[in-house]
């Protein structure tokens, strides 16, 4: 499965970035092959509004099937749902630790946004 984790850095030992729309970077891990790539979230970081929408488009294009992050706002949630991406919030630690938490069933699947909209 292709998992995207919001991240402060490029590698799997980077800290999880708790934000989605304004996350610094995305680390994409294919859990079957362990292949790892990373991408910038320049579209989200630069957006005046709708950072979550841009971020969702970015990870959708990366082929994400599942997202792990700290928090997810309402626009981001809608966008991710439309893209068919599973959302897990409440992650912390490093990217590698977050994926481990997913594997061992420690992360809850999100049924809705867990923070209000940001307007910035």
């Amino acid at each position, binding site marked *: 499965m292709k998992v995207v984790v919001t991240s402060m850095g490029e590698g799997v030992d980077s800290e999880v970035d708790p934000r989605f729309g304004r996350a610094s970077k995305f680390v994409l891990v294919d859990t079957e092959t362990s292949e790892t790539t990373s991408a910038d979230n320049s579209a989200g970081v630069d957006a005046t509004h709708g950072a979550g929408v841009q971020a969702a488009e970015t990870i959708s294009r990366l082929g994400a099937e599942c997202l792990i992050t700290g928090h997810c706002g309402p626009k981001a949630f809608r966008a991710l749902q439309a893209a068919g991406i599973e959302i897990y919030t409440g992650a912390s630690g*490093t990217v590698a630790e977050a994926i481990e938490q997913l594997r061992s069933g420690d992360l809850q699947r999100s049924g809705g946004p867990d923070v209000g909209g940001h307007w910035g």
Partner: protein
Amino acid sequence: MSGRDSLSTSLPIAGAQAMHARVPELVVISGKGGTGKTSVVASFAELAHDVVVADCDVDAADLHLVLAPEILESHLFVSGHEAVIRQADCDSSGTCKAVCRFDAVMEIERPRGFVIDPLACEGCGVCVELCPSRAIDFPERTCGEWFLSTTRMGPLVHARLGIAAENSGKLVSIVRNEARNAAAANGSSMILVDGPPGIGCPVIAAVTGAAGVLVVTEPTVSGAHDMERVLELAAHFQIPAAVCVNRWDINPEGAESIEARARNHGAAIVGRIRYDAVVTRAQVAGRAVVELGGGAADDIRTVWDHVQRWMEG
């Protein structure tokens, strides 16, 4: 948890923000302009210890006139685009004028042609896309500047929004983010935000995620009306609100009635500030009211105590 400690003590990568190690933000707003919000913030900045001050009233900012910042860094605020017609390539089809929803395209008589008014252009890009001779450029727009400064009361993050700029809240968000970075780097106990007037985008950008908002209002019919709108906004975003009536003795019955209305909205009453000529004298002298003293200064100190207790409790 392994992540937390390192996030709260290390200097974060630009823009990073640890929600679980967040420095509380108190945002001071008013609904109506001119209620004395900025004067109150200046005094709070003087009374507080270890705070970072953020002037988010970016459209006609005034706090710097009292805090007298020494600017350490300045950055251009580039946001959005504007459409500019390359006259040499324009074939006067008038397509731009026909599609512009914002009345930004003007027709010139002699010589016949079209020109885009940058004060009205919203940077939507429709004319750029549809011009049959592709004669319209779409450069990025510099909409203002933001600054990291130091003052006698601690670090200040502030900004200047350019004339006619879109007041989208993005510059407000930048100021808040930079203030959070500064607070994390300095180990500050609080971020004090001078908020913008109104209830639109800039106010929303100033208050979301705040620990609390303090509404500085006045005992006037207008003040009450606008306070209620701003309390509705705070409730909409689920942010706890407190209210303080400034110049309360101009209309004591009005002050009572405003406080009652505030309580009905679930807001905490944190005190009242009397009308005092010292307030203007302080501003003229470039000082915070509490730096001069007097009745209003005492009232502000009391309000500050109550606000601190309210934020802790």
